[in-house]
């Protein structure tokens, strides 16, 4: 377990993961559940355990839609999406660890795609 990394993630997300009562509602409500290897409740639990690297190396961090459904519906006000975001940032902030390369973008586009999608993707994937 990497203690520094855990602290960094906790500071960055501002979430008290100890508030989680492990009900699994976040994962029950998550629209990206099936696309994820690790699910919102696991993010909270694994961060609590300090198992951050596993999460950073998983594609799950790019599957969160930031729809905040887990944030609003969590009975304990734990805000799992913020945890996912913090782990994702920890990952892409590492040198050469961008999830996407600007050169890849043109082929992904179609003419109706609003640039809002591209800007957001940049925020999520690239540092």
């Amino acid at each position: 377990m990497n203690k520094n990394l855990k602290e960094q993630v906790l500071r960055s997300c501002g979430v008290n993961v100890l508030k989680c009562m492990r009900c699994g509602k976040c994962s029950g409500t998550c629209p990206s559940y099936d696309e994820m290897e690790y699910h919102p409740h696991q993010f909270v639990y694994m961060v609590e355990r300090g198992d951050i690297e596993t999460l950073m190396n998983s594609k799950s961090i790019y599957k969160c839609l930031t729809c905040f459904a887990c944030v609003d519906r969590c009975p304990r006000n734990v805000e799992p999406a913020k945890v996912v975001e913090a782990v994702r940032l920890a990952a892409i902030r590492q040198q050469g660890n961008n999830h996407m390369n600007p050169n890849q973008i043109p082929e992904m586009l179609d003419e109706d795609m609003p640039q809002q999608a591209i800007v957001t993707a940049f925020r999520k994937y690239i540092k």
Partner: protein
Amino acid sequence: MQRIGVFVCHCGTNIAATVDVKAVAEALGHEPGVIVSQDYQYMCSESGQNLVKNAIKEHNLTGVVVCSCSPRMHENTFRKAAASAGLNPYLVEIANIREQCSWIHKDIASATEKAIILGKAAVAKVHLNAPLTAGESPVVKRALVIGGGIAGIQTALDIAEAGFDVDIVEKQPTIGGKMAQIDKTFPTLDCAACILTPKMVEASQNEHITIHSYSEVSDVKGFVGNFTVTIKKKARFVDETKCTGCGLCTEKCPMNKVPNEFNMGFDNRSAVYIPFAQAVPKVATIDPNYCMMLKTGKCGVCSKVCSVGAIDYKQEDKLIEQKYGAIVVATGFNPINLDKYDEFAYNQCPDVVTSLELERLMNAAGPNGGTLLRPSDKTHPHKIVFVQCVGSRCDDSKGKPYCSKICCMYTAKHAMLIREKYPDTEVYVFYIDVRTPGKNFDEFYRRAVEQYNVHYIKGMVGKVTPRSDGKIDVQASDLLANEQLHIDADMVVLAAAIEPDKTARPLATMLTTQMDTNDFFTEAHPKLRPVESATAGIFLSGACQGPKDIPETVAQASAAAAKAIGLLVKNSITCNPCVAHSDELMCNGCSSCEKVCPYGAITYIDKEFKMPDRTVAIRRVASVNPAVCQGCGACTVACPSGAMDLNGFSNSQIIAEVDAICK
């Protein structure tokens, strides 16, 4: 001249090992007023007490100081000993030289020095002690029970059994409360009505019990043993004494599309109604919100069909005032409103229901005569999903922070009953934890799983989407399978958190009792005084104090009754004499003390004073009711003139202690 005796206890070696008790006795013997100073092995033993008693008699002592363990331990012992030797018990002071000296210090010299100082402080204080006599206050031999659910009924029955008059105030037209709406009870599955209605009848027939249904408490004054309560009897527009409960008016009433709250709105009642067949009192009530006669002056059908002339459209709210010695609060609970949790689609889909609604849907006296049908299309549901902890165990910002306690068990009950009656129906229960601490509770839950094959899934429902084909898509997590599930359910049942009745908070203010942040009444002590409120003479029964199931409620109801009876059997109660008192000559009448008194013990009177110039002046002065005052002393500091002082802990006594310590 004071004649004070000092008694230094060795407490075996507990004190004597670190404190030179002889030196303490010697030193204190030289204090002014001290005429006898002795030490003894065990002062609290019978022979030790005799030592004290004999000294009191022999030396005609005016005050006693015992240097021993904490006053919390043996103050009463020595007070009783003093009293039996003819000395006022409040002329005894304890110097705590064990817990606060010998047990915490190692150095004999400094511990002895400190023990002497503590002894000196006690001697200084006892010099100023006044003999106190506990006052007495008469007890009105009548109890009031607020709330007529099972808690209130049980309490009233028990108090009546002991031979005391007791009144039940119930805001609904009938007593019975939530239990009357419940179908079966866990863990035995006997029918709620079968065990409740005999008690309701018993209550109505008991000569000691008066039921004020359709009534509310509107004011409470007074104190333990002597409360004056104003009860508002709301106009029901039916003369209770005449109505026979025949029900003809309810059948003939043309306004028959009023949602029936007893059946959770699943069917209708008329504007004049009797909530249910076994209602007590079985008397009709006219709902002024719907009655055409009351709203427009046109109709009058019920009046025409009533053969006994019980209908009275001119009836008005009536206030009655009654005195009580004890009050028992039994205001109960309600399920919370679910607007905040519409991810479960409660507001969108009639087939998403609360557990209490399910009780009515399954009840033989319910809207479907006991056949479980979906509210939307009256078809039989084949797949039912139960969701636990809806609004319970939440962060404060998201719902109730507590566990509602009863949901796990009633859900197991529902699941079992459904599986028993409709074996073709699949039942899923989404749970976070299954909490079954209670006699035969876990066995009951295991039966649901093992015998009835109810699918318990550890996880939580995240989204409920009703579909046009009548199915309800339930999206949930299955934490053990690490899967997100979608279940095509026919019905969803939500275990809504329960909360105290909304009337509880204003009532608590009237009663000057404490409440927690969730509006549950606070007991005087969470372990040792669980059915008393901190306010003397006010007792707690049932779910108003915290979530409870029926057996617990009944147990607490009887316990509250026992406590109330314990009070009512007394002709008078002894009051704590260490209470505040006001020096009328110094009192400014400024009301500061009244504002900080948590018990409402201070009132003001206009009093005549002869002035030095022989004129008479009328001044407003504070007066403390010693039966109500609990002796906290808040008033003594609020009083700028120092008119207010506290028996047993007077300004001069405390200052004497300060001086003795600082000398």
